[in-house]
Structures are given as structure tokens and as C-alpha cells.
């Protein structure tokens, strides 16, 4: 057996161990230190024995009928059955949140599909005849600022997109560099 001097254990450490740990919870070195101390210290050995006696008295001893399962009171069995009814009732209700999710997804899909028709695109509209070139005429939208090529260039340098893609469709047909809004 290793020399006990290699594993000094104080009474305070022993008391901590006896209170806080079970012997089978200790690692082998800790257990060896404690047992070595208990072999030498009358007071700590007495406390260890006292606590073991308490454990033995508090231990829940099996009764004669311990093999048979205990009878569950009817009030508790009823409470569990009520729980089952509650779960089934909730599962039978219409799943409104799920329905909202489905409708929402359908709305988003419809919007996405219709978006090309609603949003302005970059392609020139060839359905209307081109506006005649020449002096500008008074137009209903003449109060709006007309984008000049310089403005478009500065915008494209930021967005990194071609000028043509930024040009909005004209209210009346105009040239690419002219009357676009």
C-alpha cells in the first residue's frame, strides 16, 4: 500500500467529502486519500459511521407488496384521460395558422407570376408607334424631370447596370436619349 504521507487529507477535506459525495462517486485517488484518513482519524471515522447509519435508517425499504405495481388513484387516471381528450380535441381543430401560411404562399406566388406585367421592364415597348423626333411639344408630364444621359450614367455607375435597363417606358413614344422620364 502506498505511503499515506503521499496522500495527505485534512479533517476539513474529509468532512467535505463525506457530506458532498458518495464513495462510489469519488475517483480512486480521492477515495484512497479519504479512506487513509478515516483509518487514522477517530473523529472523522465516527462521523462517517454516523452518516452511514443515517442513510441506512432513511433508506426506503421494499415492502412485502413491492413486486405489485401501486394502485393509481382514480383521480389521477381521470386527469390523464382528460389530457388525452384535450390533445385529440386540439388536433381535430382546423389548422388556421397552416391555412394562412398556404394562402399567403399562394398570394406571393401569384404576385411573382404577375409581376412582369405590372412592373416596368427594360425592353422598349414596340406596340406603340415611335414618337416623332423634332422640337419638344408640350406634354401632360412636362412638369416631371427628364433624365438626361449624364444622370443615367451616374446611376449606372452606382448600380452597375446598363443605361438601357434603367430607362423607363415613355408615356408617349420618344427616342432612347430623349424623352424618357
Amino acid at each position, binding site marked *: 500500500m502506498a505511503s499515506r504521507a503521499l496522500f495527505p487529507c485534512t479533517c476539513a477535506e474529509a*468532512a*467535505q467529502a463525506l*457530506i*458532498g459525495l*458518495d464513495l462510489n*462517486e469519488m475517483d480512486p485517488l480521492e477515495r484512497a486519500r479519504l479512506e487513509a484518513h478515516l483509518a487514522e482519524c*477517530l473523529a472523522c*471515522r*465516527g*462521523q462517517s*459511521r*454516523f*452518516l452511514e*447509519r*443515517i*442513510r441506512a*435508517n*432513511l*433508506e*426506503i425499504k421494499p415492502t412485502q407488496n*413491492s413486486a405489485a*405495481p*401501486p394502485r*393509481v*388513484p382514480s*383521480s*389521477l*387516471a381521470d*386527469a*390523464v*384521460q*382528460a*389530457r*388525452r*381528450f*384535450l*390533445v*385529440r380535441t386540439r388536433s381535430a381543430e382546423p389548422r388556421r395558422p397552416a391555412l394562412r401560411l398556404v394562402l399567403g404562399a399562394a398570394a406571393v406566388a401569384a404576385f411573382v407570376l404577375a409581376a412582369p406585367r405590372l412592373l416596368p421592364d427594360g425592353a422598349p415597348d414596340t406596340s406603340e408607334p415611335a414618337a416623332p423626333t423634332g422640337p419638344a411639344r408640350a406634354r401632360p408630364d412636362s412638369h416631371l424631370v427628364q433624365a438626361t444621359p449624364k444622370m443615367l450614367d451616374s446611376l449606372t455607375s452606382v448600380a452597375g447596370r446598363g443605361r438601357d435597363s434603367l430607362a423607363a417606358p415613355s408615356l408617349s413614344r420618344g427616342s432612347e436619349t430623349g424623352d424618357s422620364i
Partner: protein
Amino acid sequence: MSEHEPSDEVLLARVGQGDNPAFDQLYARYHGRLLHYFARMLGADRAPDLLQEVFLKVISSSTAFDGRGGFRTWLFTVAHNICCNEYRHVEVRRRGIEAQRRALVPGATVSAADERVELADFGSALQAELARLDPDRRSTFLLRFQEGFGLEEIGRVMGCPVGTVKSRLFYTTRLLAERLQAFDPRADEEVRHG
């Protein structure tokens, strides 16, 4: 519990779905321990009612259990809280009874702490001394030495730091050792021959 039996947490989840056999299994595992705990905390006559109360809470809160600390810790936390509530009611009743006693016997100054318990065997004396303890210290002691909970687990059940758990245990073991010294003949022998 063998390896093939479902864990407490699995059974609890099934109880949440209204599974009676799962509840029966859970009840069988813990009803004895809880009965003893309540009997030592509040007396054998109250234990069955409190046992029912704790399992009703288990059923109603079965889906609220988040799994932290394990089912056993959660169960005894509920049991401990029930004890705390019961102590508040008992204290109110005790003060009322004490007031009645004083009214009937003028000048009586007997208090529970002063009464010495003379009992024949260590086990009975231990029960009696535990009953005299402060409820928090008694609960801490029972959770450690009856239920075998670790210090951290006791702290979680009682909502206090590990340091508080340790100090309560130290105090209680020292107190019990003093009060039950007469029942340990081997200690006396060692003192004589040591």
C-alpha cells in the same frame, strides 16, 4: 430501471399525450420515494394527499417540462414547492393552536424547540429530530441522504447556491450528531479506548 425500459422523460412526453400506461409506470417509479419524502417533511397523514397533488401537477405540466436537469430534479422541485406552501398553511394553523393553548393554560411557555424527545431506538429518534429541524434544512438533508441527490442537484431543486446546500448539510449533521450521541455506543467506546 433496465436499459430497455423507457426513460422518465420519454414517459412524461407520453403522459402529455394522455398515455395512461406511461403514467402508471412513472407513478410506480416515484410514488414510494415521494410518499417517504412527504411523510418525513410533513407527516404520514398528509403524505397521500400531497403525493396526489404533485402527480396532478406532473400531468398538467407534462408538456411544459423543458428537460433541463432531468425529470427527477423537476419532480422533486415540484414536491419541495408543495411542501413550502404547506408549511405556510401549517404555520398559520400552529400559531392559532398555540394561541388557543395559551388561552387555556395561562403562563404556559412550552415551545416545540425546548421539548426533548425520549425514544427507544435510533430510527425513531432520528425521525423525531428531523421533524424539529427547519424545513429547508430538513429537505436538504433528506434530498442528500435519503434520495442521494448531488449538491448541485439539491441546489436546483431548492433554488439556492451549492454553498448554501453545503452549509445546511454541515449544520444539520453536526446538530444531529450532538442530539443523537446517546444512540451511538460505538462512538462512546472509541472515545473511551481511543
